[in-house]
């Protein structure tokens, strides 16, 4: 018999009763998995949503996903480590992404990255110890016409120089300390 039967027949009821910790964010994760009907193939989408919900992928999250999608944990780990989009460490409160695309490179983006790294004492791809600032790079954010480009807290800044970027980041971080100081004063 050459025909196949169509969809898999084991519509097993996968319980989605949330996480024992009672963390509400797991409910959002459950909704995502449910949306994909707990299909194994939705792993990448689920990882995307998980990172969006939790900010990064921790080991217990991967175990949670592995159990619910019935994908072997080693495979979940293998997939998550394959794609550079996924991060296993929490990002800083403020995040600066420097584009490393060809156009930006030609216009000196690596100099900007280096300058920021030195100025704020943070290794490239890492977060400052106080967790306030992360410096990361991206392959290309597709704004080549404005090279060199940086993304600071989601806002794209084109035609930057090392100095202009340092100023931008300083502004953001200064607001942070002001808030802190006000908090202490109050």
């Amino acid at each position, binding site marked *: 018999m050459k025909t196949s039967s169509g969809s898999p027949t084991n519509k097993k009821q996968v319980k989605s009763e949330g996480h024992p910790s009672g963390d509400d964010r797991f409910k959002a994760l459950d909704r995502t998995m449910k949306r994909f009907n707990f299909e*194994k*193939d*939705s*792993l*990448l*989408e689920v*990882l*995307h949503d998980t990172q969006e919900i939790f900010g990064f992928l921790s080991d217990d999250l991967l175990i949670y996903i592995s159990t619910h999608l019935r*994908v072997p944990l080693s*495979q979940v780990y*293998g*997939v998550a480590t*394959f*794609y*550079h*989009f*996924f991060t296993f460490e929490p990002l800083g409160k403020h995040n600066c992404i420097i584009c*490393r*695309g*060809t*156009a*930006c*490179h*030609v*216009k000196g983006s690596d100099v900007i990255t280096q300058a920021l790294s030195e100025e704020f004492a943070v290794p490239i791809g890492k977060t400052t110890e106080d967790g306030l600032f992360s410096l990361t790079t*991206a*392959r*290309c*954010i*597709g*704004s*080549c*016409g*404005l*090279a060199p*480009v940086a993304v600071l807290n989601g*806002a*794209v*800044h*084109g035609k930057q120089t090392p100095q202009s970027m340092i100023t931008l980041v300083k502004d953001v971080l200064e607001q942070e300390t002001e808030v802190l100081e006000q908090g202490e004063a109050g």
Partner: protein
Amino acid sequence: MTLEKLERMAQRERQRQEKFERRIFCCISTACLSAGAGQTINALQEAVDACHCKENDVEVVQTGCMGLCSRGPLVRVEDKSAETLIYADVDVDLSQQIISKHVPMRKLTDESIPEEMQELRENLKKARRRKRLEKHILGMDSPFFAKQEKIVLRNVGHLDPEKIEDYLAHGGYSALRHVLQNMTAEEVCDEILRSGLRGRGGGGYPTGLKWKSMHQEESETKFVVVNGDEGDPGAYMDRTMMEDNPHQVLEGMIIAAYAVGASYGYFYIRGEYPIAVDRIRRAIRTAHRNGILGKNVLGTDFNFDAAVRIGAGAFVCGEETALIHSVEGKRGMPRMRPPYPSTSGLWGKPTIVNNVETMANVPPIINRGADWYANIGTEQSKGTKVFALAGQLTNTGLIEVPMGISLREIVYDIGDDVPGDAEFKAAQTGGPSGGCIPHEHLDTPVDYENLSKLGSIMGSGGLVIIDSTTSMPEFARFFMDFCVDESCGKCVPCRVGTIQIRILLDKIIAGSGEPEDLNKLEDLCHIVKDTSLCGLGQSAPNPVLSTLKFFLDEYIALIPAQEPA
């Protein structure tokens, strides 16, 4: 039923648009947004409001890329009774001037003007007296625009990407309608074959052939995948199309599905493109609502549905077998071909993978005919190609040019030369898989054959101009770094070979190279090229090989002179 409904929607939208005396388009694509288009469009709207003009006089429209991204934010003013103008570098102040120039201010009694508007009205009155507007006007006859020919991007920058009505009003989905009503699947394949359309993702395989072979596969389930994983750093053509005219891509995809007999499709979009993801998702939803997707597309017995899958930062996923693995939620590692995806792709079913730009070419071909399309371009390469023009040029941005145009025209006419004192050195095409083309080959016609003859490739359309300030060995190392990072690690030549190429480049650039290292470098590049599993590995050494070919003197200069024995 659905057909009539769509026709009514298009009609209504056209009538609505025609009522306006003036329509002011503000580009809100990423480049312009980062240049401040957000404030610009707000300022435009406020200024229009302040003019308190008649109903149906002025509409401010958010739209997509107009091309000259380096001069953003861009604003185009279409006036029924005047010439269409494009303004560059439009900030808030300039917005007010533009409005005051084009929009007549209604005389009103003071009471009828809200207090907060008073100041703005005064500003607009003052702005009328200023004259510095002219230098922001981009002449439509300037070479940047005149040398271009827009097929794929024809409607980009002319419509609101979030409104299906706007697309319909511009003749959207008429190709699909035509196909479903008047053509068999086979005829569609033939039409595309006759048009000479070739895959715009880099390989340049005739799209019609691909469709035909898939059409002939016997399988209940087939898939269409649109490759929107534009991984080439320095390119953003696909992103622009997905963001600024998502329905055109979707329409191409549905036609492809009809032609090959697929019932389900995926858009595989880079994770770094959240807006594109959002726009495509929205387009799918509205298409669904209007009977363009789902069961019985446009009332026929053709069923097709589509979903979005998000990539996660892996260049290799541009390779179709890797992409298929990624859509299946696996590690994006390529596999050997054959079997080709058209025989065994997603979940082992026949699958066709086409790049975004290829899909966007389909509706115009259907609408205007294969013969018309085949007239554009060169003998082997038909139609137009969209390039992301970047690097050391005065004009950078998104351009669409007919195949066969010379590089010189692109660099000097459209790009308006290298700024400042520096001089043009090379044009890099095809991104990390491509190569550099030096000055002496600038008259080469841009098409698939000629570029590969020079050791480069057409690629997906990244075109980066390098000036004399850049060292070519270092530039080659930049690409090698990229390939080392992006190698999936499956096959040895790519996994280990790229590392060894980089080690050699490091050594040479550090000034500790020996003369034979250059031979070794070249040999190694050929080994990696000849023995790698997938396109990424096979083309990874191209940047090194092409710089070795054209800029060998720069490498030699880095090798310390040998002590005489």
